[in-house]
């Protein structure tokens, strides 16, 4: 495991999306470092971006513009949505000395998409090698994938402890946050602690996108909701083990990422609306009494699918509470009454 490193470590490569090929970045001797939408950087995104972009992107911009994240060897952003594309443009303006790669991420997971994505990863690998001065060969990449899978296993263990009720969602989020900034020593420590909040009783399934604050999960618990399973970009979807197939590590990464846990932006061409189906199936499997959706404002992939998700959950007899936030605790705190009322309502479901 890599040990924790300093924020001014110039091997860091900033990233923002759980589809980022972290093993590829590490294979170049660089350190993938996720910029979480946290901190108190001044709000400056509106000077370059528009207010109608999601808070995730705006908060990342704010941190980058404030320099509070330090310098990076480079930035790998994924073309997962329109907002991320604009973030890439904006980053180039405010930090022109840092190379920015916008990685094309196909929206489907068919074989053609995987092949193309593998090619895009190869080309990214060449750039990463230039950034570090350490070109990537297949052997180094396979070694990096194996290390990455160990890390994914640690995260998987933390999730399993959470699913088994040995740790609560807040503690699990602490593990993921440490892992996001490559502080693996801390992640390991946190994954081993005991912390169960037994006061919250009503089982709830949580899905959505970005919510990195452990205190958010404490707030859910304070409202009586015990998160029994979750599907969030800042936790569950960060666990993406890579299955090495056909001795092609790039294709292996491509396939594993596209076939891994789905963000709503990724489409199953054979099952349009699969996101809704999968969320409903997972919610039923978790034996939750109800479902909470936590998404950021202006997140088009989730906004557009929410009605179909609601429909599927209704068919399963599962009430849904939709919360829109700005990744902050403040906005979630303002919805405490709604969460309490929802939990009260589903208590006997």
């Amino acid at each position: 495991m890599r040990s924790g490193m300093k924020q001014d470590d110039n091997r860091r490569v900033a990233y923002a999306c759980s589809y980022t090929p972290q093993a590829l970045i590490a294979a170049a001797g660089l350190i993938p470092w996720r910029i979480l939408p946290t901190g108190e950087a001044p709000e400056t995104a509106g000077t370059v971006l528009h207010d109608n972009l999601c808070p995730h992107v705006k908060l990342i911009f704010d941190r980058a513009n404030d320099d509070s994240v330090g310098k990076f060897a480079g930035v790998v952003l994924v073309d997962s949505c329109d907002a991320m594309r604009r973030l890439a443009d904006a980053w180039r303006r405010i930090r022109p000395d840092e190379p920015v790669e916008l990685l094309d991420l196909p929206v489907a997971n068919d074989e053609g998409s995987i092949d193309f994505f593998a090619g895009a990863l190869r080309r990214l690998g060449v750039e990463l090698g230039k950034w570090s001065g350490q070109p990537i060969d297949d052997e180094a990449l396979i070694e990096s994938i194996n290390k990455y899978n160990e890390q994914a296993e640690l995260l998987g263990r933390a999730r399993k402890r959470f699913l088994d009720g040995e740790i609560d969602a807040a503690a699990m989020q602490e593990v993921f946050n440490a892992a996001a900034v490559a502080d693996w020593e801390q992640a390991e420590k946190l994954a081993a602690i005991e912390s169960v909040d037994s006061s919250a009783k009503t089982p709830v399934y949580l899905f959505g996108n970005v919510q990195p604050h452990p205190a958010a999960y404490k707030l859910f618990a304070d409202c009586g909701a015990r998160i029994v399973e979750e599907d969030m970009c800042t936790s569950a979807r960060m666990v993406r083990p890579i299955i090495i197939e056909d001795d092609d590590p790039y294709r292996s990464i491509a396939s594993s990422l596209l076939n891994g846990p789905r963000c709503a932006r990724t489409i199953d061409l054979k099952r349009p609306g699969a996101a809704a189906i999968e969320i409903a199936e997972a919610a039923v499997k978790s034996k939750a009494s109800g479902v909470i959706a936590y998404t950021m404002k202006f997140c088009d992939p989730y906004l557009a699918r929410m009605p179909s998700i609601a429909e599927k959950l209704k068919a399963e007899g599962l009430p849904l509470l939709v919360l829109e936030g700005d990744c902050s605790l403040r906005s979630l705190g303002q919805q405490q009454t709604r969460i309490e009322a929802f939990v009260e309502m589903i208590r006997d479901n």
Partner: protein
Amino acid sequence: MKKYFDDLIDGIEQSFIERPESKSARKVYALNIARIGARLYTPGADVAWCGVLAPFDLLNALGVTNCFVEFVGAMLASTGASAMFIEAAENGGYSTDSCAYHRAVAGATMLNQMPQASFIIATNCPCSGGLAAIENLARIFNKDMFMLYTPSRIDEHSEKYLTEQIAAMVDFVSSQVGRKPDPARIRQAIEYTNEARELLVETYKLARSTPSPARIKDLENLGISLALMLGTPEGVEVARAYRDEFKQKVEAGIGGVKNEKHRILWIQNRIQFSNPIIRSIEQEFEASIVVDELNEVYWDPIDPDDPYPGIAKRIMTTPLLGPIDRRIEQLQGLARDYKIDGAINPCHWGCRQGTGARAMVEKGLKEVGVPVLNLDVDCVDSRNFAEGQLRTRLEAFFEMIN
């Protein structure tokens, strides 16, 4: 809806007979748009619903009734009917923060006013919202979906991949309609496309004249909607009508706007519903919209014997693809070529890819001496249209560029 379009067709055709002098290029365009609408809403018409950048000339050559979904949103807005459908969508759980083009489509689907799909051709460009709207249609209509993925990196790898996908799309469509593609029809379609392209290039060159022959609404939606007619004689007819009209006006020194004082570049989409602002631009401020960003022909003629690479290249020329610097360069080029005094950017609420970049676009045009008026407006939903506020902004803008 069918009746609406049929009445429109009858009215325009009748006017051509009774008053031949009224046969303007814009009316020829409107007639053909109405015919598209009528086809879509003909009972039993199974429509291939598509994303904006689908290759409609190919689909026309394959004998498929086709359209991009946002056409319905725009059409509902232009008839003044969009509010009802948007409200239906909102009541059905679609967020007011999402693009109203797509909310209108969702509402139309919920109210059974979206023609039945035969199959779906999804495109990820220009936006995530559009792709999601298309996926919803595939789900609701339970129809097969093909994904035409356009990478944002503009290079030979992306072109090659897009070319391969276009070929695969043709196979997909053939399997859906149960007939093999006819190479002769495809060839003919591409020849029509190239012919329309040449005429459009001439048209836009003529629009650069001073005064510009373009009336205030002449160029509205032209490029986007004419894409639906590419590959057909109708596309050539409309493009030729424009070219001939503009040529005649330029030769006679007739401007589209009387006393053209200002030349305006219109960024991205027009406001689709009837509104007094556009007339004010012409009559009060004596400004001419001489170019619409999305009309411009950025692509080369396509080889009729091997069309797929050329079509891939065409798709990749859209200004809405790739880094914003590319789009800004294109806008700066338009500003120079059309001798622009100012640009108007209707920052459509819910448009992340477009409106999200507005500050960068504004700065980029400022660098070449072109001020930009960013209007906070919804191009499809008229419910919150704030005429007073917009007028004040326009007054200040035109005073500044005076």
